[in-house]
């Protein structure tokens, strides 16, 4: 891996994505052991810096760092206390002075990780920047699809829900297209961004049209604030039109799997029956998330003789 930071899947080549997934396969074996620890990153420091709430992503990164024997420091930044731009640069310089080798950053502003990366020697991993990208989520999704289906190329993956505001979908589209999958999106018209057809994504507003032929049904979390913003009429209606139930799932291929980035709104975007069925691979996604993040930390953390450029 010749890059300093992992900012998004848009900038990664197919070979780089495959290398991360292959490395994650080796890491997956480590977390299956009784002793889930290898000495690889002894003496390295990983800082997690979250300007937005998150449980699973942060927990997953910290666990990944610990499995590799790195030390972790975690900084919870209250969004309100941090002004964008200047504040971020100063924080980056501080983290640099503290000697962190990798920084995992989540921030409400798109591009925050890229800015941060320019002012620190550490490897910066984007753990979600506004509506832009969430690369490690997409990588764990790709890994899970490959694990479940044996391949990615030639599969049809359908995303259902709030496409407009989803950095998870954005990262996944880049990754899936690069690895040769067909991508469909389906949601209410108010939550579909323009321009998806131009990058080769098929857009649907009716599940009945979108689901047939799907190998993977990827259900997105419905954020309640979308109702307040007037983008959606109400929870019940959304559930009736777009909720993934057993009956709806029957429209997809018989062996189709169901994915969800979590946390779930049971009974809204996904029925409890589907979420708890053998078709859902949501818990596998969480486990694979640790392996994929171990791979990213291993591949990105600088070596002594490394002189990756930075300002």
């Amino acid at each position, binding site marked *: 891996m010749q890059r300093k930071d992992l900012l998004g899947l848009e900038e990664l080549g197919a070979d780089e994505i495959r290398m991360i997934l292959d490395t994650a396969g080796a*890491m997956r074996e480590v977390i299956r052991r009784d002793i889930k620890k290898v000495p690889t990153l002894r003496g390295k420091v990983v800082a997690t810096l979250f300007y937005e709430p998150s449980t699973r992503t942060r927990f997953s990164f910290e666990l990944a760092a610990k499995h590799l024997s790195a030390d972790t420091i975690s900084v919870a930044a209250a969004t309100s206390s941090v002004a964008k731009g200047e504040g971020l640069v100063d924080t980056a310089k501080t983290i640099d002075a503290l000697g962190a080798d990798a920084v995992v950053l989540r921030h409400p502003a798109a591009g925050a990780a890229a800015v941060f990366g320019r002012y620190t020697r550490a490897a910066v991993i984007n753990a979600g920047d506004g509506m832009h990208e969430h690369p490690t989520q997409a990588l764990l999704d790709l890994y899970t699809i490959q694990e479940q289906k044996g391949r990615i190329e030639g599969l049809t993956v359908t995303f259902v829900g709030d496409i407009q505001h989803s950095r998870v979908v954005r990262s996944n589209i880049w990754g899936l297209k690069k690895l040769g999958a067909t991508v469909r999106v389906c949601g209410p018209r108010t939550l579909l961004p323009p321009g998806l057809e131009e990058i080769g994504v098929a857009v649907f507003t009716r599940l009945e049209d979108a689901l047939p032929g799907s190998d993977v049904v990827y259900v997105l979390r419905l954020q309640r604030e979308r109702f307040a913003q007037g983008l959606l009429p109400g929870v019940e209606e959304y559930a009736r039109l777009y909720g993934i139930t057993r009956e709806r799932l029957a429209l997809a291929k018989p062996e189709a799997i169901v994915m969800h980035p979590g946390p779930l709104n049971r009974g809204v975007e996904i029925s409890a029956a589907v979420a708890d069925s053998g078709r859902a691979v949501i818990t596998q996604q969480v486990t694979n998330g640790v392996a994929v993040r171990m*791979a990213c930390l291993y591949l990105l953390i600088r070596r002594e003789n490394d002189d990756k450029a930075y300002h």
Partner: protein
Amino acid sequence: MKEKAQIMDAEGIRRALTRMAHEIIERNKGVENLALIGIRRRGVPLAVRLAALILEIEGREVPVGSLDITLYRDDLTQLSYQPLVYRTEVDFPVTGKRVVLVDDVIYTGRTVRAALDALMDLGRPAVIQLAVLVDRGHRELPIRADFVGKNVPTSRKEVIEVHIREIDGDERVVISERVE
């Protein structure tokens, strides 16, 4: 890299492995509780072959696993690149087993040190032994092989290249020299 001499041909490798298989059986008084674990990459096909030879001689199968030692290397912080990590695949419990680690060449001993750490993270073998196709000397750690195909005195400028059919397409051991 300039090739200086061929040390073993395919027949030589076959004969050395056959002798080593006999020695492994003799040293362990049979194959009870025996397991072979190859160190990636070239130790793995060698372990598979030793297991096949042991089956021929004793009529009993011994489990074979593969170990990737990348995550245990002591020079990771000194490298300017990240070595690729391959999967460790040991799908049997190693605790209580008589484990023979298999590698193609032993040199400084650092790979074997890493393999010992990796193996002990998987469990607690009763005994760990080491089988190598070539011992080229220049040890930097107090580690020795129990079963050796061939001892080859070398200078540090020289490189031992083991070619294994399963990985390299041909089958021989050559000694080469780095050309400055």
